[in-house]
């Protein structure tokens, strides 16, 4: 079972100094997975301008620090998200947009959409709202930046520590080998 508190994983000493630079220049992987992607252009452009904080879109996971999951994730897109996440380089963070990443949102009872993103990849920050508006996104970024500064945003370390647990969850969804409902349940 995952340890709830990750106190001992927090950054310390010199890492904290570097965190200032990491906080000030986060490159996000513009991986528009769900309906939240539409919220990002306004945050980037004139009105909210997230570039002020050094956050900008980047094309490849290799160069990105920030993975935005902007909405519901079906099983197939989860597979790609996991591969992209693993291709990103440490330190890396994940922000889950909207309720779909928290508890499945309006697709809570869908047979293909995952309910809790944090079961599969470590989520450093989730922004509520069925698609949060740019203000919410900006505050989200602020809180993430503070967490990084304090050294608490250590999802990537958690992922490394409890990799088997994450792997088990991922396999349960992606690599199933026998049907979910046993024949008895089907009868009713």
């Amino acid at each position: 079972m995952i340890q709830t508190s990750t106190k001992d994983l927090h950054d310390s000493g010199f890492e904290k100094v570097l965190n200032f630079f990491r906080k000030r220049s986060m490159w996000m992987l513009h991986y528009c997975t769900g309906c939240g992607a539409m919220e990002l252009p306004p945050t980037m452009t004139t009105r909210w301008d997230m570039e002020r904080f050094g956050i900008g879109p980047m094309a490849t996971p290799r160069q990105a620090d920030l993975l935005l999951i902007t909405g519901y994730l079906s099983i197939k897109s989860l597979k790609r998200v996991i591969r992209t996440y693993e291709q990103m380089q440490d330190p890396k963070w994940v922000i889950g947009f909207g309720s779909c990443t928290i508890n499945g949102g309006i697709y809570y009872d869908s047979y293909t959409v995952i309910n809790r993103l944090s079961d599969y990849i470590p989520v450093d920050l989730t922004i509520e709202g069925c698609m949060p508006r740019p203000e919410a996104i900006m505050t989200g970024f602020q809180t993430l930046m503070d967490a990084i500064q304090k050294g608490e945003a250590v999802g990537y370390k958690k992922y490394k520590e409890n990799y088997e647990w994450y792997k088990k969850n991922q396999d349960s969804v992606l690599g199933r080998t026998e049907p979910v409902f046993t024949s008895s349940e089907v009868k009713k």
Partner: protein
Amino acid sequence: MNQKEIIELIDNKFGIVKSNIYDEYQLSVVVKKENIFAALALMQLNDFKELSILTAVDWFDRNVFEVVYILFSYTHNQQLILKTEIERDNPEIVSVMKLWEVAETYERDVHEFFGIKFLGNPSLKPFFLHNWLDMPPMRKDFKTQQYSDKVFGKTKEEREK
């Protein structure tokens, strides 16, 4: 060719189970299972060139699948909905691939989500779902809530808490 003539045309050829006119541009006709193919062929000759969609409806309580073909004619500017009913336990129907090639994909989709076998369609392979081993999900007796809780973890209690 207005809606009346269409209904008469099909009626005196194959005998209509039921027909219904929704508005001046849309009408639906229900035909028996064995002459659905002939009806479709007839309508294709009469300028209903386009098969907009082929889908199915699961009448669980009547233990019946209703296979729906929606045709559209540019000349008559009419949308004809041809329906037929097949029994639910061993759902089979003739494939209309020979009339419209596009039907192959629609039939593959319906087969995956309803389990209806279309005779003569070679590619009834899994389509959208990721290694799906359970019963076709669109059937009414498929309990999505339990499935989601079992696979993706419970959320209902948390929300109530």
